[in-house]
């Protein structure tokens, strides 16, 4: 038989690794693959459940780089570039589909944000354009445009198959010699004199000078194992899927006001989510009734014909969200050798191919690439938060914070 899609992951734990990555999702596996590609082959990935069991396999798979601050645009553009050729690169079809990404604004304030953002996006290489109501109607005829003021359309954004990204990265990393250990929980991180020394897992202990926290929603807990308190908390994020229906909506899309994001998969199902005004931090992934009502209302507002469609299944995942909703990228000041690739909130999936490349460059060369520098973990201490207003996320607790209006996609 041909090569298996998911490799046999039954290697023996070595005593020493150059880098140990915690979290077998798109970030952990993507980073491992990129490290190995850059010549660092002695890498281990630990995942406490099956690969992709966290937010990697639970998100709504939207991909864009049309943001409104230079920092976010540059970071995500690195990813959008990587998405275009990811299948080719790792030899596995991740089903990235360039159906485009549509952002709609139903208030004048957000329409103005779109108008201001597009020139900035274009100047930094984003394939986006400002679209008026007529054009929005042409891109997505099913939308009720009566309340839409304007929008942004990014032609090379879209969606991908989340599980395929996990499997593709896992197989590619495995071929390059990375040791991947699913169903292996990290129980302790050994730190001596402010320097990472090793990791203890349910499969045994290893020594390593470098640990990368790519644990997604569990990253604050993992950081605590190294004695580091992250400026991030764990929140549940929900989504649902409708029964399959004939293709109605080509692009992936978000609505800035209702904090709603949706896309229609190749199978015809609508995958959608909508953010409530506030969610308290929690590790519960129980589905809620309120979420169904909220998202259903917003979806029907956007696409009236969906009134007659039905919700098939709902689920939840955990995300780790920082105070400015931006990721935490780089080594911590507190513990040398403890690196972060977390805090992605609802934007981890779309960022993964770019983050894998940039973080690997960072780890191999020691110098932070320009795209990740602004997202250094110590930016809060230095009061250098980044306020990106086009995030579809509500700021968790400090609703009064000036720019951060919203929370995920």
């Amino acid at each position, binding site marked *: 038989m041909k090569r298996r899609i998911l490799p046999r992951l039954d290697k023996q734990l070595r005593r020493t690794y150059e880098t140990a990555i915690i979290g077998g999702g798109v970030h952990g596996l993507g980073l491992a693959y990129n490290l190995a590609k850059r010549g660092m082959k002695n890498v281990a990935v630990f995942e406490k459940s099956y690969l992709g069991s966290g937010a990697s396999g639970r998100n709504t798979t939207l991909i864009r780089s049309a943001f409104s601050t230079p920092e976010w645009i540059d970071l995500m553009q690195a990813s959008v570039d990587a998405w275009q050729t990811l299948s080719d690169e790792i030899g596995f079809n991740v*089903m990235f589909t360039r159906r485009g990404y549509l952002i709609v604004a139903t208030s004048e304030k957000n329409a103005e944000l779109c108008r201001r953002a597009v020139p900035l996006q274009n100047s930094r290489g984003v394939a986006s354009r400002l679209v008026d109501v007529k054009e929005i109607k042409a891109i997505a005829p099913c939308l009720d445009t009566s309340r839409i003021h304007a929008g942004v359309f990014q032609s090379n954004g879209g969606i991908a198959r989340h599980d395929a990204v996990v499997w593709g990265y896992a197989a590619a990393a495995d071929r390059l010699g990375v040791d991947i250990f699913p169903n292996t929980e990290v129980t302790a991180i050994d730190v001596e004199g402010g320097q990472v020394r090793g990791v203890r897992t349910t499969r045994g202990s290893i020594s390593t000078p470098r640990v990368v926290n790519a644990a997604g929603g569990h990253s604050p807990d993992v950081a605590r194992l190294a004695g580091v308190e992250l400026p991030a908390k764990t929140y549940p994020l929900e989504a649902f899927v409708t029964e*399959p*229906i*004939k*293709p109605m909506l080509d692009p992936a899309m978000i609505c800035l006001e209702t904090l709603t994001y949706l896309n229609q998969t*190749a199978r*015809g199902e609508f995958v959608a989510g909508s953010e409530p005004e506030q969610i308290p931090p929690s590790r519960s992934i129980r589905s809620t009734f309120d979420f169904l009502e909220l998202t259903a209302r917003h979806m029907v507002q956007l696409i009236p014909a969906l009134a*007659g469609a039905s919700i098939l299944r709902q689920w939840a995942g955990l995300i780790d969200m920082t105070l400015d909703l931006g990721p935490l990228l780089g080594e911590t000041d507190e513990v040398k050798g403890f690196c972060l690739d977390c805090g992605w909130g609802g934007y981890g999936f779309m960022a993964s191919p770019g983050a894998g490349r940039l973080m690997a460059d960072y780890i191999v060369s020691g110098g932070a690439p320009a795209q990740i520098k602004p997202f250094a973990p110590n930016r809060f201490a230095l009061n250098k938060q980044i306020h990106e207003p086009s995030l579809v996320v509500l700021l968790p607790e400090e609703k009064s914070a000036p720019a951060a209006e919203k929370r995920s996609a």
Partner: protein
Amino acid sequence: MPSSESLRIGGDSARKRINFLYNGRSLSACEGETIGAALHASGVKVLSRSVKYRRPRGLFCMAGNCPNCLMQVDGRPNIRACVYPVREGAQVCSQSGWPSTRFDAFASIDALGFLFPIGFPYRYFVHGGWLYHKWERLLRHMAGHGLPRNGALNGVSASQVKTSAECEIAVVGAGPAGLAAAQAASSAGCQVALIDEGARPGGSLLLDNTAGSRSESRNGQSGGDLLKRLTAAIEGQPNLRSYLRACAFGYYDDGLLGVLQENHLIKLRSKRLIVATGAYENPTLAENWDRPGVMLGTAVQRLLALGIKPGRKAVVTAVNDFGLEVARRLIDSGVEVIAVADCRSESEQSRRLAERGVKLLMSHGLKAVRGRASVKAALLAPCDQEGRIVSSNGTSVACDLAVTAGALQPANELLFQATYKGSYVLESAGTLARVPITGDDMRVDENLYAAGNAGSIGDLEKSLLEGEIAGLSAALSLKAGSSALKERCESAKARLSARRQS
């Protein structure tokens, strides 16, 4: 056998007629029928095409539990036609297949399946994103099940479609266990809500009201009598409210039960939840078991309960007495039962079938089904005790209906939405069931009780006792009951425990 003869028992003229449109063609139904049943009675066999291999699919479960009868009804896609009531003037369209469901131009893909092994898209189109883009476009147009029409359900969003309600004890399922629980809880003075998907309370009792597979322990009482007694006991109870044609679709935090009653959503908050949702019948696998004309035993029961013959010449395969019971009911209803295959050895019940002219094949099961758009014959072959076919030498029996009466499995989704406490057990005839860990008071978790087949598969007496215990103990956990009530609860517990030991 004249195929023009009506499948409606007693002929077509007996009941009030309803006219509806199916793919633009005018058909008639009888009052009380579902769309699926009416289509079946009108001779429509292929209801859909399967999603990948475009295989013809027909009426199979009659319970809304499979995808075979998904149809567009009055502009709403994916309606389960088998359980959706037929209404005057309804516009029903099949959803899948091109140019039509009956004749699908892509049906040859079924024979070319080897070209498209599972997961093939991950391996194909790796290089050159544009190729995948084109493929996806094609796939998107092949996929999906109908398109919601603008304005379908328009009236719904405007007027009263959502209400909140409260009760002390919510009982989900109005079968024997649920009725017993609701009766017990309301007689103890609790505010009770009883929720059931059916148009009438009764659950499985409605299906076998002549005698029935679960009748042995009924002490000579017929299913109909029992149903009358149970429904009479809850009728007119001022502290009991019934929600019929209603589905409790989810159990959320803070005791919130989501209930969908047709197009009405009820947010029901209760202090205790009793799950008595009964069981599903598990399909028996065979080559081409998914052909139109193959039906579950419970589907046969449901069609017969609507006064419709599921077919004209039947073959029945059984893994337990339920299958033999289905065969008997088919004969009683005027369906010619040619053969019965039972994976077990001969019994009193199977001999009785033989006396009525049925060809009996003991230690036999269904190996394959012949026919494409409809069943032409069933191939019966020797099997082991669990129904696995062990020999390729079979007997081919011409028929237009193949009934695969399978084992029951608990319908326990709601139960396990509400709790994590349960363990998997392998029950008789290979049924895997996740069984909740219940105390002798049928309590599963803090506010959660399970009763009847939803907890674990058993006979009618077990369901009735468990329902009574769950209802009484839930009530007693909320208020100090009279000593008579406590005695009744203890006595029921003692009887159940005695049954378990025997």
